[in-house]
């Protein structure tokens, strides 16, 4: 191992923010409702629609109820952080800009292998898909790199690039630790100090204590609320409820109580909402 200086989790975030700020990105903040990925943040989902240039970077808290492991698995948790970058239009030298961001974190390309592994990203609930890769650093997946082609079931007029860093993964490599819970957040406090209890409680909730019937009810109520708001032209509050539907769906799925075809139907219902948002947003 090279004698890389240990970068704390918080400093990793500072470094990335500084790097992308220099590249012309607006430094934004996370969304304030449960989302499965930074893509749901209106700073991505809505801003990638239409022709206006948009460059932004932000941290997003991601909830993946199904991935919880009661804090017993060193690599799997039901909540973690992404660092999300959107550049629209995509700069021609974006691959280099991204690779140099890794160098700025201390990964000299001469001393590592960075591999772009074919992986076309798709979010059925957002009606969005793109062409791209998982980026592997010495075998570890650290980034999803995507050229969006469609969002809200609409062909994009200007192609944005979405770069999503898995912050914990990268930091584990930097700090040479094999458990996410051992990551140093700062010099004194670890990731586990902050989130171990959280992982335990949420895993118990996600897998055991959530009430699937009530969740289904909530799903329906949120869906109606979104539809009503759309009718009144209130796209943004409506989008809030579409996002809530998406999260509720993830919770229901974690319980493993829906069949394949029911699952497909619920996804289609969320997609109908997000597609409506996209359509109305562009009409404005």
């Amino acid at each position, binding site marked *: 191992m090279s004698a890389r200086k240990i970068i704390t989790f918080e400093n990793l975030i500072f470094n990335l923010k500084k790097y992308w700020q220099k590249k012309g990105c607006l430094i934004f903040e996370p969304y304030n409702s449960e989302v499965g990925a930074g893509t749901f943040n209106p700073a991505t989902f809505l801003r990638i629609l239409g022709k206006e240039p948009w460059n932004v970077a932000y941290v997003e808290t991601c909830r993946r109820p199904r991935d919880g492991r009661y804090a017993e698995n060193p690599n799997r948790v039901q909540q973690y952080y992404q660092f999300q970058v959107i550049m629209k239009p995509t700069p021609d030298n974006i691959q280099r800009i991204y690779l140099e961001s890794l160098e700025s974190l201390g990964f000299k390309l001469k001393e*590592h*292998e960075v591999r*772009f*592994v074919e992986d076309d990203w798709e979010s059925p609930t957002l009606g969005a898909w793109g062409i791209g890769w998982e980026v592997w650093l*010495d*075998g*570890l997946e650290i980034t999803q790199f995507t050229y969006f*082609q469609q969002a809200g079931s609409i062909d994009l007029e200007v192609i944005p690039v979405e770069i999503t860093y898995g912050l914990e993964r990268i930091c584990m*490599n930097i700090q040479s630790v094999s458990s996410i819970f051992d990551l140093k957040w700062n010099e004194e406090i670890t990731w586990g100090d902050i989130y171990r209890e959280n992982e335990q409680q949420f895993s118990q909730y996600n897998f055991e204590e959530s009430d699937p019937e009530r969740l289904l009810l909530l799903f329906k109520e949120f869906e109606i609320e979104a539809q009503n708001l759309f009718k009144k032209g209130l796209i943004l509050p409506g989008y809030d409820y579409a996002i809530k539907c998406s999260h509720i769906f993830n919770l229901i799925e974690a319980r493993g109580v829906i*069949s394949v075809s029911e699952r497909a139907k619920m996804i289609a219902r969320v997609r109908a909402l997000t597609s409506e948002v996209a359509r109305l947003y562009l009409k404005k």
Partner: protein
Amino acid sequence: MIDFLLEIGFEDFPPSYLNKAASDLTERVEVLFKKERIFYRTMRKIYTSRRIGVLILGVARKQKAQNVEVQGPPKKFTYDENGKPTAMLEGFLNAHNLKLSDIKIVRTQKGEYVSAIKAIPAKDTDDILYYEIPKIIASLEFPKTMVWNQEKIRFPRPIRWIVGLLDRKPLRFKYAGLEAERYSMPNFHFSFEPIRMEKPREYINFLRHGGVVVDPNERRKIIKNRINERAKLLKGEPAYDENILEEINCAIEYPDVASGEFEPEFLKLPEEILKTTLKALGNLVWVKGTNKFICIFNGRRKAEDNVAQGYARVLKARLQDAFFYYQNDLKQGIAKMQEATKEMVWLEDLGTIYDKSIRLIKALKNFEGLTDLNMDVLKRAAELCKADLFSNMVREKEFTSLQGIMGYYYARSAGEDEKVAIAIKEHYLPAFSGDKLPRSKEGAVLSIVDKIDNFLGAFIAGQRPTGSYDPFGVRRNAYAIFNIFDAHNFDIELLPIVVNYLKLYKNDLDKNLIIEFLTERIERYLEDLGYRYDEVDAVLYNTNFNVYDARLRCDGLRGFRDKQEFLQLVIGQKRVHNILKNIKDPGQVDTTLFEKPAEKNLYQRGKEVEEKMAPLFPEKKYLEIMKLLLSLRKDIDKFFDEVLVMCEDKNLQKNRLALVNYVHQLFLKFADLSRIVIEGEKDKNNEKQKT
């Protein structure tokens, strides 16, 4: 002589498209050079994960010159009464840049015309390439493409540079917002600085310095050597084949090698888990039987330690996951997994996975008559075969491909019979087209029944395949059914099994839909074996989708196909077919109504053949049956020569039709020969042959 380099540089390409893209490009450039008569000495195909191209040495600067004959106006319109060239002739001369002295008169079928030999000026190679190369790039086709800038050009990944260098001159054609230049790009692990080339011959070496081995064959060789050398050092044998080698080759630009280890305790995992885990990590090659792996990576030697440690760490985490799932599954036991099948809906309105296994068990009855088939083993296997879908292992995305295989291990660990476990493992085979088939009889039967359940289920759920739409892989399933029946020589009709199976679904799906679908599939299967479509058509007449029997009948036909006698027989049967086509009920033959010897003779000979054939059918001696039928040819011909079937006397006519029908039915027991297509005649002609 000069050289030419074309290189299209892009961000990392889907490995599975790469070789074809480079081959298509090279081929089309070659066609262009031939069509445009541009001489060259050698042409080399280039590809790495970030570029495709072609390097052509010894290129002519110009096309080969060419003379063509051009035809002008008819002779009578060439000069006016004063002997001056007409406007028509002048126009011709001007159009082709000719002088009066160039022309001569030629005789053609339409009369005498003006003609001239015209020298077409040789165009410069760079002009041709400037216009034609962009068209070639645009002509490349891919399974999936994208757009990345406002040019809206489609390609699998963004094109980021183009080298088009003819001798020392960049071609400067424009494509996708780029201009063909003299700059290539190195491997990004080495540098971001463009590589400038004065001339194409510098390409291979300059790029090598930039961390790119552009020649795929050379790179493949290096990869192979590096793996083998490292394996030797590790005192083991690497587990790879040519496919894995090419997959690695398509994902990199410059091969270097690292190696690492995993905890020996993971060797306790079933080998399939180990291999699947390693394979998911891309360029890892297992050193057989050891806890070591070799990693081919795309970077600099300096990276070796980081790469080795990085991959080892990821591998460890993945193996830990797998180990955890596997241990949990063993603890849980297959019985509990089977319980879970009662709760999971398979397809909406088609019950749970458990219901599915109950259907499978019931359908096994159809196979009871087969020799050497252990029904107890089979029933048990059918009961358990879907249980592993509820194991931790198979529920993981990375390991879904291990369905069946995990069932094998979990059944064994629960103390089930080895044969039961094998049938479970084999019942998903073939998992893809070209995959191996179940070897055990029980595995074969279970696989067939499962696939019948799958395709009927899809039909009932409204997921019939149309065009390229076949989300349930219904076509592949049906094809596999025939493949397994045939490979195991199961002498069983499929149709009754399928019809019975519908009852298990309590569904009244239109039988004709299924027959139509199965017909298409069995035809495809037999044609893939090399039988001609008309042969297949002829034997399928009454086999009820007994594919094993159909194949033997095809063989029977084959043996006689080229004989002159056979052709006459076929012509005869086509006649008979046409005579009988509009007769609803030909009735029974009344021997007392025979008038001519040929009638009596044909009937007697028919009876003889019928008697001799009867014992041959159960033994499937179709060559001999065919021989017997062939022996009737003379008698049939004689009958038609001497007897008028459609005679005035209605009673006689009816009896003669009955006789014709009797003979026809004899043939149909074997095959409908009227469906055989005779050379020079399309099968439609069936209709036209009127008697």
